[in-house]
């Protein structure tokens, strides 16, 4: 059996293939990526794209959560101010309802309640990034304006719309509570009750003042209830964000395992490729120069 005398062709093929493996190993190590083109591992490349899209969703849920959170915290702190002001109004009203109060005393209390009312209106017109917090989904700012024709002295400029934001694949939170629901609610009107208290303090009897204080208390209960909505949103977002941050970690590690290299495998591939390459080069160096002619001199 005659053998292929063309050793250099055989060796060239071998050298090319070991060089190829060496190249692959080096470029994988250099880039940190096992899949550099979809053809390197089509299934992994496709799954990686899906995972990246999922990561981008998680990022956007987190961003949404952050922005809803700051808005909700802003609204919550406005409502917390309103609650303490209402408590103060109740204390003043109770004081004013005392039979020993003179008309002058009540008038001075009424002035204090008046200033509370203006403060509360200020809180109701709070804005966040230029957007009124309590005007529903209307862009109206301020949410409440003084209106002498209104029984409460203020009229609502917004609407009763509620925006929501995604903070999870199937999880939405409400971004706002409409102002009419908080401040001019039929079951506890903040502005109306405070105005009532002021006029009762000005001209009313002790009983009138007592009733007006009771109305303010009802309004306080309503505001507290509405505030719970924001507290719920804040809790939900905090819980979701800790979930999302875990999700980000697991997605990142998924992407790494799909298309990234396993360092130890890559290094051992490189070592193998190096050994194979130097072996074939050594073989070529030994075999190629050998010829019968060398021995005929």
């Amino acid at each position, binding site marked *: *059996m*005659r*053998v*292929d*005398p*063309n050793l250099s*062709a*055989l060796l060239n*093929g071998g050298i090319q293939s070991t060089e190829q493996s060496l190249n692959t190993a080096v470029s994988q190590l250099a880039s940190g990526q096992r899949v*550099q*083109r*979809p*053809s*390197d*591992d*089509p*299934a992994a*490349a*496709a*799954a*990686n*794209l*899906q995972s*990246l*899209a999922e990561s*981008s*969703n998680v*990022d*956007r849920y987190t*961003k*949404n959560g952050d*922005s*809803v959170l700051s*808005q909700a915290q802003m609204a919550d702190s406005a409502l917390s101010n309103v609650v303490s002001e209402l408590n103060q109004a109740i204390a003043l009203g109770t004081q004013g309802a005392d039979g020993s109060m003179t008309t002058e005393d009540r008038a001075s209390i009424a002035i204090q309640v008046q200033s509370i009312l203006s403060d509360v209106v200020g809180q109701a017109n709070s804005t966040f*990034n230029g*957007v009124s917090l309590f*005007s*529903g*989904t*209307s*862009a*109206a700012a301020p949410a409440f304006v003084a209106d002498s024709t209104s029984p409460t002295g203020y009229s609502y400029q917004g*609407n009763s*719309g509620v*925006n*929501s*934001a*995604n903070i999870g*694949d199937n999880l*939405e939170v409400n*971004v706002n509570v409409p102002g009419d629901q908080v401040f001019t609610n039929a079951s506890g009107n903040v502005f109306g009750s405070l105005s009532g208290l002021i006029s009762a303090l000005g001209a009313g009897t002790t009983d009138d003042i007592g009733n007006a204080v009771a109305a303010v208390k009802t309004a306080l209960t309503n505001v507290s209830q509405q505030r719970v909505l924001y507290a719920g949103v804040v809790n939900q977002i905090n819980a979701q964000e800790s979930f999302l941050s875990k999700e980000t970690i697991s997605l990142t590690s998924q992407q790494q395992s799909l*298309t990234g290299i396993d360092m130890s495998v890559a290094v051992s591939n490189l070592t193998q490729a190096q050994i194979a390459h130097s072996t074939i080069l050594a073989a070529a160096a030994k075999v190629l120069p050998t*010829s*019968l*002619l060398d021995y*005929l001199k």
Partner: protein
Amino acid sequence: MIGLSGSLSIATEALGAQTAALEVANNNIANANTPGYSRQVVSLSSEASVQNGTTVDEGVSYQGFTSVRDAVLGMAINGATSDQGSLTAQSKLLTQINTAFAGTTTGIGASLSTLFSDLSALSTNPSDPSARQTVLSDANALVNSFHQGAAVLSSATKAANQQVSSAVAQVNELSQQIASLNGQIASAEANGGDGGTLTDQRDELTTQMAQLIGVSTTQTGGAPTLTTANGSPLVIGDTPYALQVTTAPDGMAHILDGQGNDITDELSGGSIGGAITVRDDTLPALSQQLDSLASQFADAMNSAQAGGYDLNGNPGVAMFAVPATGSAAAGISLSLTTGYQIAISSDGSSGSSGNLKALLAVQSNNLPGGANPTDSYASLVGNVGFAGSQVNSALAATTSSLQQLTSQRDSESGVSIDEETANLIRYQQAYSAAARVISSINDLYTTLMSISLGE
């Protein structure tokens, strides 16, 4: 009885035969690195005749030389070469596409994510003009990504067409050379000779041809015939049949045989076959997938827009426009001109983000194609990858089988310098010995002459 003169003629013949053998070895060594060269072996035979009932040896006779080659192996090599040519062409084209679709932070997938991410940011502040403008420029970036994707596929189609045209020109040139060699070989063989080197040259050209187009070699009435794999003649005897390339109205290069029949779809193998496979099978499937993603995505976004109101309280208008004919991915355009037109409001009030839900749902809802936009794109990239990886692994397998076949052929037909060196020494010694015989006979003659002169 031979006598001195008979011996002299045997020795002279021997000198001639060994010289011829040396020439053959010399030629083998000279062509040791010539591609396609088959080593030649000298054929010598001993001469004898019967005279008066006695066998009389009459020395050696030089019978010429023959090339050592295996026609079946040659065909197998042509077949593998043709597969390799096809797969190499496919691999080159598909590698370009794979590189273009390799981006994870760029491309359609990333543009989709950015668009929905920025759209979603509008949920807390729907009337923010700069956030709306961001969404608009994201949508524009997505349109550009679709255009780029379509351009990658169409430039691969163009490259395939160019490859077909230039390869056909090379095929025609080779047909002419092969036909003229066929003529020379036929006249050499008619004079009882071996085509030898000419046959090697023809076989080498045939292998080069196989690299370009799948070929099959047969004999038609004694004339060697070279046809394409589907049977269209390229060369019959010493007549070449040129292929022609015409450009169809759709811009595709079509191949016509010598009779003017369109044989484009019937060709396989070689870089022509490979380019046609990619152009007519692989690329259209990918383009179609990209186009339907573009058009279905545009429809979904447009119908979501139609359900809402823009910042000015007007009903939402279409976000994207897709051409009615032609490639949707190449022709998709952004219809909105300002961020105000994004229909985020569900009730017409400027602060509402109620319709955002419908717009964002486009990302997670299945398109008519059966998957959501992200998954559709991922599956497109997966298909790009599968096409590439299949071809690459087939190419690796074919290359190694071609290497084995070539090595097998070389083991039969390749020139071994060591072997030829050994032969040279053998022939040289035989020559020296024959020369010694002549010198001895010369001595004998001289002796004989001196005897007769002395008397």
